[in-house]
C-alpha cells in the first residue's frame, strides 16, 4: 500500500479540508441557533433556547413541517417501487432503448428546476389538482427519481444473476423469487435511495414554489417567505430541525432494518 509520508499527508489534507468545508456551515448554524440575541450572528450572543420555543409556538411552522413530512412520505413511497422497477428493467433485462431511457431519466436534471416547476404547474393546473399536497409529492419524486434509480442500479449491478436461478432451483416461482430473494438482496440500494429521496423531498423548494399556494405552504417555502421579511435566528433553529430529521432517520434505519448487515453482505 501507499505508506509514503507525502502521500498520507496529501490524503489527510483533502479529508480535513472536506470535513471543514462540508461541516463548518452546519456547525455555524447549529451554534447560531442557540443565540440569546435578536439577530442571526456568529459567534452567538449567549445561550438560550428562546428561538426554539418561538418556533414551536408558531402554528405556521408546525403546519408547514407536517405538510413537508407528508410530501416527503408520499414521494418516498412512490419512488421506492417505481425507482426499483426502473433500475431492474434498465440494468437487468437489457430492454431496447435502455440508453435512451437512461437519458430520459436524467432529463429532469438537465432542465433548470425553474423550468420543470413551470411545466408541472401547467400540467397539474390543467388536471385541476393544484391546491392538494400529493401533486407536490409526485413532482418532487419525478425530479429526484434519478437518485433512486442510480442507487438501486448499483445494487442490481452487484447482484449475482445466479441468485434468482438458485431461488428457482429451490422451487420458488419467479414471483416468489422476486420478493424473497431479489428485493431483499437489493435492499441496501433501495434503503439508500429512499433515504435520499426523503431528505431531498423534505428540502424541495424550487419546484414546490410553483405548486403550493398560501394554504398548503411546505416548510422550505415557508422559510423562504419568512426570510423575505427578516432574517431571525428561528431560521437557524429550523435548519437544526432538518439536521435532526436526517440523523434520526439514519439511526432509525440502522436500528430497524439493520443497515450494517446489508452493508457488510456482499
Amino acid at each position, binding site marked *: 500500500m501507499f505508506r509514503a509520508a507525502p502521500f498520507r499527508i496529501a490524503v489527510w489534507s483533502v479529508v480535513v479540508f472536506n470535513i471543514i468545508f462540508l461541516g463548518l456551515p452546519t456547525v455555524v448554524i447549529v451554534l447560531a441557533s442557540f443565540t440569546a440575541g435578536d439577530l442571526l450572528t456568529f459567534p452567538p450572543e449567549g445561550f438560550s433556547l428562546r428561538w426554539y420555543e418561538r418556533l414551536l409556538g408558531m402554528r405556521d411552522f408546525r403546519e408547514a413541517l407536517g405538510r413537508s413530512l407528508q410530501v416527503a412520505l408520499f414521494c418516498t413511497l412512490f419512488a421506492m417501487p417505481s425507482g426499483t422497477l426502473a433500475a431492474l428493467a434498465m440494468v437487468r433485462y437489457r430492454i431496447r432503448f435502455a440508453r435512451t431511457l437512461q437519458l430520459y431519466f436524467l432529463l429532469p436534471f438537465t432542465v433548470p428546476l425553474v423550468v420543470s416547476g413551470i411545466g408541472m404547474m401547467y400540467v397539474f393546473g390543467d388536471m385541476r389538482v393544484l391546491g392538494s399536497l400529493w401533486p407536490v409529492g409526485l413532482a418532487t419524486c419525478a425530479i429526484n427519481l434519478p437518485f433512486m434509480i442510480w442507487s438501486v442500479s448499483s445494487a442490481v449491478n452487484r447482484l449475482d444473476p*445466479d441468485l434468482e*436461478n438458485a*431461488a428457482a*432451483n*429451490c422451487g*420458488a416461482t419467479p414471483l416468489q423469487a422476486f420478493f*424473497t430473494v431479489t428485493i431483499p438482496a437489493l435492499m441496501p440500494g433501495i434503503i439508500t435511495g429512499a433515504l435520499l429521496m426523503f431528505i431531498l423531498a423534505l428540502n424541495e423548494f424550487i419546484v414546490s414554489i410553483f405548486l403550493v399556494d398560501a394554504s398548503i405552504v411546505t416548510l422550505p417555502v415557508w422559510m423562504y417567505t419568512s426570510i423575505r421579511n427578516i432574517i431571525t435566528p428561528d431560521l437557524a433553529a429550523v435548519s437544526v430541525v432538518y439536521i435532526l430529521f436526517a440523523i434520526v432517520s439514519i439511526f432509525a434505519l440502522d436500528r430497524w432494518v439493520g443497515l450494517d448487515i446489508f452493508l*457488510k453482505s456482499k
Partner: protein
Amino acid sequence: MDDTARRSETSTQAAVQVQDVSMVFDGTPAVDAASFDLAHGRFLTILGPSGSGKTTLLRMIAGFQTPTAGEIFIKGTPVSTTPPHKRSIGMVFQKLALFPHMTAAENVAYPLKMRRFAPADIPGRVKRYLELVQLGPYADRRIHQLSGGQQQRVAIARALVFEPDLLLLDEPLAALDRKLREEMQLEFRRIQQELGVTTINVTHDQREALVVSDEVIVMDDGRIQQMASPTTTYGEPANRFVANFIGVTNFLPGEVIGAESGRARVRVAGHELEGRVAEPLAAGTQVDCALRAEHARILGEAEAVSFSADAVITESIFEGDRTVYSVVAQALGGAQIRVFDTLHAGAGNKGIGDAVRIGWDSRHLMVFPR
C-alpha cells in the same frame, strides 16, 4: 398419452438421459449433439477445458436454458418444457449463490418452504442436513460470517435438503485452495454415497474427476469425447484429445504400416513401433503414438524392454514424490519426451546434459489417428 408411453419406455434404467442435446449461441454451438445416460445413484463428472460447454450442458439440465435441439429426460420424463422451479434438482453454483440476507439455517430452510414441506418438519430436517455437512453449531450465522469452506457446506445442504432426484455441481470447489478442495471433494463423495443421490459434477480438475466419480465424461468444443469409468478414461482414452487432456502424455508422430486385431505397427522416424488402437487403422494413416510420462522410463545398465533409444536430458524438475525429466531422443527424430521418475528408480544422479537410455513396454503405447 405420448408422454406416459415415453416414460414407461425409459423409466427402468436411467435417472438422467440426455438425447442429442444442442445449444447454439449466435450460430456457434456451445453444446453439440450431446447424448448420455446416467443410472440412479451414480456420480458423473463432466471434465473439459474452459469454454467446452460444461456449464451450458448443466444449465440445460437445471432448466435455466432451453436446448435448441434434443431432449432431456429426468426419471424418464421429458423436461424441456418444465420450468426450473418445477424440476426436482438441487444445484450448487460456481459462485454458490447463497442468499446473503439469510442465515445458514434460513438458506437451508428456503427450498423446504418453497416446496411446501409441512412447516412442523422443517426445523428438524434443516438441523439434520446442517449436521450432515458438519455445520450444526453455525446454523444462526449469516453467510458473510462463514468461511469459504463453510459456505460450500451450506450450499450443499441447501441443494440436498429437499431430497432432489438429481444433484448438480458446477465447479463449486474451483475457488478453494488445494488442500480444502481435496477435503471437500472427498466430503462430496461421502455425502453422495450416504444419500445415494444421482450427481452430475462439472470440473476442469482432472484429479477431481478421477478421484470422486463413478463415471467421467470428457468434453471438448461442445462435444462429448468419451464417457467411461475413471480407470478406463485414464487407461484407454478414446482419442488423442482425451489422452492429451488427462495425464502427462508424449506424442510421437508416425505412419501406420500394418495392423492386427487391436494393435498397429507404426513407423516413427525410421523405427517400427507397436501400440494399441481403439479402432482399426488402414496402412498409410497419419497417426500419433501416445505414451504416458509414467510409462516412459530411464533405463538402468542392463535393463531390457521392448523399445529403447538413446537420449539426452534437457530438463529436470524435482516435484518431491518424483522427478520429471524432459529428454530429447535423436533416434526418434529429435522428439522431446517427458519421463516421470520416482525418486528411487532409474536415473540416479543424472542431470541436464547427461546421456541416458530411455525405453518403454510396447503394451503401454497407444495409437491415435491425427
